[in-house]
């Protein structure tokens, strides 16, 4: 058995060290990454993948700890992927989400992995989706993905998770924020955390009002829940809604199929994009045009956008 096969077998048996190695392989995009994902892919699709997003300081990590405990109480195994930002200046990262979850570290039914964005935009890292697949294939009943503290347009999580929880806390903005496009549109469940604070009801009402303006017909109506992550208040109700949404996804065949199709479509498009751009850039560099134009940019003879247009137009004609 090769080393990769050993790791794949280990993952499928739920071995924690193999899971750890597998995530490292895909995170570093090592040569065996593609084979690994190809081998585990048929074993995915069983876990309920939940995405949790919201502003930094809303209480995501703290809430996840309580959500995991509740799922554990129900006898389910849980995987958590917690994403924090990579510094665009040094490439380093401080991954601190675990601090709130360390009491779960020695629970054998729980696996927690911290990931840095490695400058991937959209609130997660490039490898997050595949890391979720690994935890799914390893037999976790529930996989929770915590995005970086997200503001408005970090919506990449929709490509990873089946159920999206968007978290708010009182005092972060008025009803105008609630009407904005982006993150508010991806929620299957809204959570107003820190519900023991002043204005929590107002925040919940603003979101409700925004939802009533929506003309989305039929289907799932996103509920607005209130929680206090520190004490766990409201968490059982949240789990109930999460389960409800899972049933909704599973029960309604058409809806589920279209969801899966959208997800597959996005994945396929992304894979194509990556390969096309890589092939094009390689070709341009091989032909020497790249360096030629680079010199011209440095001499201020042409701007980068015009240079790119020139290169791409020519390359596509040749391809």
């Amino acid at each position, binding site marked *: 058995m090769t080393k990769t096969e050993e790791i794949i077998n280990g993952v499928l048996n739920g071995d924690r060290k193999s899971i*750890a190695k597998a*995530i*490292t392989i895909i995170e570093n995009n090592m040569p065996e990454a593609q084979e690994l994902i190809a081998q585990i892919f048929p074993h995915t699709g069983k876990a309920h993948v939940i995405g949790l997003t919201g502003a930094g300081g809303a209480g995501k990590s703290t809430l996840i700890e309580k959500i995991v405990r509740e799922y554990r109480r129900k006898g389910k195994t849980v995987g958590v992927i917690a994403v924090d930002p990579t510094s665009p200046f040094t490439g*380093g990262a*401080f*991954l601190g989400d*675990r601090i709130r979850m*360390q009491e779960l570290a020695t629970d054998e039914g729980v696996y927690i992995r911290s990931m*840095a964005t490695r400058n991937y935009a959209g609130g997660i890292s490039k490898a997050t989706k595949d890391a979720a697949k690994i935890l799914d294939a390893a037999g976790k009943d529930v996989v929770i993905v915590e995005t970086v503290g997200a503001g408005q347009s970090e919506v990449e999580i929709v490509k990873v998770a089946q159920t999206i929880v968007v978290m708010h806390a009182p005092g972060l903005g008025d009803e105008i924020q609630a009407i904005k496009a982006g993150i508010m549109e991806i929620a299957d469940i809204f959570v107003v955390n820190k519900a023991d604070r002043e204005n929590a009801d107002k925040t919940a009402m603003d979101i409700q009002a925004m939802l009533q303006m929506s003309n989305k017909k039929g289907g799932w109506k996103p509920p607005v829940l209130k929680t206090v992550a520190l004490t766990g208040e409201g968490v059982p109700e949240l789990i109930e809604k999460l389960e409800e949404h899972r049933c909704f996804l599973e029960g309604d065949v058409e809806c589920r199929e279209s969801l899966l199709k959208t997800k597959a479509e996005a994945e396929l498009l992304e894979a194509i994009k990556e390969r096309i751009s890589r092939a094009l850039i390689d070709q341009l560099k091989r032909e020497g045009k790249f360096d030629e134009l680079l010199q011209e940019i440095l001499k201020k003879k042409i701007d980068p956008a015009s240079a790119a247009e020139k290169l791409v137009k020519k390359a596509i004609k040749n391809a």
Partner: protein
Amino acid sequence: MQDGRKIRVLIAKPGLDSHDRGAKVVARALRDAGMEVIYTGLRQTAEQIVETALQEDVDVIGLSILSGAHKTLFPRIMGLLKKQGLTDVMVFAGGIIPEEDVSEMKRLGIKEIFGPGTTTEEIIRYVTDNLPKRD
């Protein structure tokens, strides 16, 4: 198309003291040196630290302790690392560890001990120069 391996470091606070300034300063310095630093927070058991190192697949563990319990906790941590087959992880320590205990701690497999007055540059250099070869 390999994106290159990032150095992953676990900074852990075993035992009961809550002096985490040093741990945070070191974590920040390693972050600024381009590493991915996972911080456990305070009051970690040996089991929590080793399990975290396993799940996070770290290359390096930095233990910060000022309580004086290193002679109890470090052997336990090193023993558990061995049990989990994590002998390829480099472990260093810092905090208050008396001179006379240093050789005993190093015999356990702790590669280096940084006492008060150590600069963050020294730690960064040490970590970078002594990275373990891992597969």
